[in-house]
């Protein structure tokens, strides 16, 4: 028995159950929540080197599942997000007036499919298996995005499809070249020859589309902005992270020996541009959800901006941890923000930022959730976002990377510029009377997520230790040289 399998199998079982149960599918979260959280806890409690081969079939043929630091950070966070989103989505995706609807029916299987897919993605080391998990997640994501706007969903679908294929092309080249697609084996076998670097380039480019790194983010804002709030939360929090994590694994584990400084700076530079560009676009938005969506574009930039910082670090463990903490913090905070935004927009029956007037009074808890999430996203203390940005900034300064340091700082300020705008309006007076629309259960979801994002800021050491478990040699080795203080 191992949570490594169950974390994937359980959501799939729930998916089947949800599909069969139809309109009763929403009840499943009451079982799925405890089960998945329990499995996450089990994952955290596993011994550091926990890993096993599915069906006991050995590499290079079989598939290796592994509980490394990345998984230990992201899987529990993912589970928390899913549980919270599901609880929030409950009333929204229930039968209307006793009648089952397509959305209420299909939302739940899609949720579990995405859940299983993302867990599978974090746990596996097999690049082809990753392709399948990407498709699981993308499929669900497209369906959820299409629930808001079909056009945006189609756009997303087409772009994601090409991205997947680019990734698959890389996998094909690697499979032909090395006769394996396992990352741990590739780490040993990879040579910097043309097929390898081409494979890495196309895989990275394809995944960058999925991870919506500027300038490949075009699909994200319309899709994330138009979807229903719980769907937006999942899209922004979960879906884009998978692409990022795979790139992280490719660059620092499978192909650590192949990667060149110029390439890593290319990624870092794109990340930096994403931070700036996404923030500026967010500042320009007049409507709330596009603003939050562009904020995702900006925040994803940080993840890539960190690459050169990890690469050049004296103690790579710290920026490595930082980037993972950032991913987790963004996951929690962004989910919280979309959920809170959903509640707020519903209450004012509008979607413009200027409609939010007076909400701080009418819906204090939602606004609080939004604000706490904003704090983490801006990287203000105490929050997970701060811990991450702090470590990154420290690394950037230590390495004398003035541009990255500057972008980190400016990005935080721009973040404040756009995130405080809706808050500011919410704290203002209301033009129209506001209907108070905070169900205790619904608002608990964003509030819990946001509080967790803040709480991450107090657990810096734990997170760093977690992230160092099973870290790739390129990350872990220098850490061993210099024991912590």
């Amino acid at each position, binding site marked *: 028995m191992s949570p490594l399998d169950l974390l994937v199998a359980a959501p799939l079982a729930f998916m089947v159950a949800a599909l069969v149960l139809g309109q009763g599918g929403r009840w499943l979260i009451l079982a799925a929540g405890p089960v998945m959280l329990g499995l996450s806890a089990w994952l955290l409690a596993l011994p550091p080197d926990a890993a096993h081969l599915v069906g006991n079939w050995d590499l290079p043929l079989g598939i290796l599942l592994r509980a490394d630091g990345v998984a230990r950070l992201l899987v529990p966070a993912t589970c928390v997000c899913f549980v919270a989103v599901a609880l929030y989505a409950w009333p929204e995706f229930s039968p209307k007036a006793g009648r089952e609807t397509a959305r209420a029916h299909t939302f739940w299987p899609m949720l579990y499919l995405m859940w299983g897919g993302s867990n599978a993605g974090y746990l596996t080391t097999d690049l082809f298996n990753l392709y399948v998990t990407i498709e699981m997640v993308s499929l669900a994501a497209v369906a959820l995005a299409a629930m808001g706007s079909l056009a945006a969903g189609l756009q997303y679908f087409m772009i994601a499809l090409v991205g997947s294929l680019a990734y698959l092309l890389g996998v094909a080249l690697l499979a032909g070249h090395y006769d394996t697609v396992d990352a741990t084996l590739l780490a040993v076998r990879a040579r910097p020859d043309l097929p390898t670097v081409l494979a890495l380039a196309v895989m990275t480019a394809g995944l960058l589309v999925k991870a919506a790194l500027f300038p490949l983010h075009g699909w994200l804002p319309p899709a994330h902005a138009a979807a229903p709030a719980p769907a937006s939360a999942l899209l922004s929090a979960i879906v884009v992270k998978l692409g990022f994590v795979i790139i992280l694994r490719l660059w620092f584990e499978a192909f650590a020996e192949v990667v060149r400084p110029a390439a890593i700076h290319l990624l870092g530079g794109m990340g930096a541009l994403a931070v700036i560009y996404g923030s500026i676009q967010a500042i320009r938005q007049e409507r709330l959800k596009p603003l939050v969506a562009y904020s995702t574009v900006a925040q994803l930039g940080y993840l890539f901006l960190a690459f050169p910082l990890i690469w050049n670090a004296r103690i790579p463990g710290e920026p490595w941890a930082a980037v993972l903490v950032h991913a987790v913090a963004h996951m929690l905070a962004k989910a919280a923000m979309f959920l809170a935004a959903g509640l707020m927009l519903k209450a004012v029956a509008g979607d413009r930022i200027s409609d939010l007037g007076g909400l*701080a009074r009418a819906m204090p808890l939602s606004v609080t959730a939004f604000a706490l999430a904003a704090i983490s996203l801006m990287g203000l*203390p105490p929050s997970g976002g701060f811990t991450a940005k702090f470590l990154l900034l420290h690394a950037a300064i230590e390495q004398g990377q003035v541009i990255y340091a500057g972008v980190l700082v400016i990005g935080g300020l721009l973040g404040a510029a756009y995130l405080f705008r809706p808050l500011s309006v919410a704290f203002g007076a209301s033009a129209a009377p506001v209907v108070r629309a905070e169900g205790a259960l619904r608002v608990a979801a964003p509030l819990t997520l946001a509080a967790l994002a803040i709480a991450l800021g107090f657990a810096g050491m734990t997170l*760093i230790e977690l992230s160092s478990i099973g870290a790739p040699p390129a990350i872990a080795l220098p850490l061993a040289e210099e024991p912590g203080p």
Partner: protein
Amino acid sequence: MMAGAPLFLILLPLIPAIISFSLPERLAVWRNAVNLLFALVKVGIVADLLRQVRGGVDLEWRYTFLPGHDFLLRVDTLALLFVSLSVFLWLITTVYAIAYFGRGPNLSRFFGFFNLCVLSATGVALSGTAITFFLFYELLTLATWPLVVHNGDEKSLRAGRIYLAYTLAGSAAFLVGILWLKTLVGSVEFTAPPDLSAVPPLTLTLIFVLCVGGLGVKAALVPLHAWLPAAMAAPAPVSALLHAVAVVKAGAFGIVRMIYDVYGIGTVAELGLGTPLAALASVTILYGSLRAVMQADIKKRLAYSTVSQVSYILLGASLIGPFAVIGGLVHLVHQGIMKITLFMCAGALSNRLGIKAVADLDGAGRLMPVTMGAFTIGALGMIGVPPVAGFISKWYLGIGGLQSGAPWVVAVMAGSSLLNAAYFLPMLYRAWLLPPPERAGFRELGTSRDRMLILPAVVTAAAALAAGVFASSAVSPLTWAKLIAERGYLE
């Protein structure tokens, strides 16, 4: 007391904060009681700490929050100066705020954030490393923002935006500075200045500029001051709090820490950083006063006055000499109690009489003599009229300037006094000497709420007076400032 005392002291306001946030408006009485109770408890704890620290006790609480980065709280004399100022004024402001708002909307929120501000300000004071300082410094920004926008009108929202833009940019610069320094020397603790000799002077200078520039935003150093007058859109208790204690002082306090505990006066002097900073502070002093003269709104005028006055602290810190330090530190307290008096009075005037502009002050002294009396004492203190406390600060600063070979400081002091007089005296003139518009049956102290509104200002005015008259007594701020200087900076 245990070593966790500093942490306890910092976290104490969380309790009333949470209670305030969660109590509905109709339980205002309970909320007020809880707030007052905890403010009192905190004063008591600080009094006890004062006693202990004077006796030489050194309290410390350390927790490694990230590898190589400690969360360190230390109670030293300088910290206590700021802490005792803030807890005292907080008690006062709490009383005032309760009376000021009465039963307005959004007060649970207000008091919640109010307590978070106390928390942050205490944290700022007790921080033992620059990074811990930064954490609380940033938290302070966040906790004060809802207070700035409390009124929720377009003006205060705009003020909130400006406030954030300035302070967040400032703290970002500060963060870059301290992280840079930390990577170079390994420690940014406030205990003893690290050895900076290996670092190139240009780098050190750059870091210093970043840090002081960042902190200078909150301390409203010209040209980083614009947020402060804008923040006047906030209600009076907030202005009192922001301008007298929390925000601006946090900045000034941070700069003092930078100069004395992070760089050390030796390094600062070697690098020749003191004089430019002192010059900048002087420019701020004069510019702020000059702008204050031109303001028609009372609170704006007071705000520019704050811009000017806070730089006294910086001037004292940057001059680097025993007297200057004492002057700067003692002004930290003096300016606090005097300016809070002024703001509370201004708030009372606008609350009770609707007076907002200087031109409306006509006859306010006849209608509200007690309030205006307190205001007058505060104003005279600002001008530097003895025996109100401001004079003591100016005296030490002037002599300190001379000691440090900067005789122009005396001219700055003199010029500032003149300008202060130029904007305060006309207000007093109007209030006391011009006839009031007709107001039938107005009574200043008619209800107990009125008394609560005006009493705090009277207390602080009396404190300002006492701090000046009994400057050399054992319990005066001056004596404490001298103690700090002796223990820390005069070896």
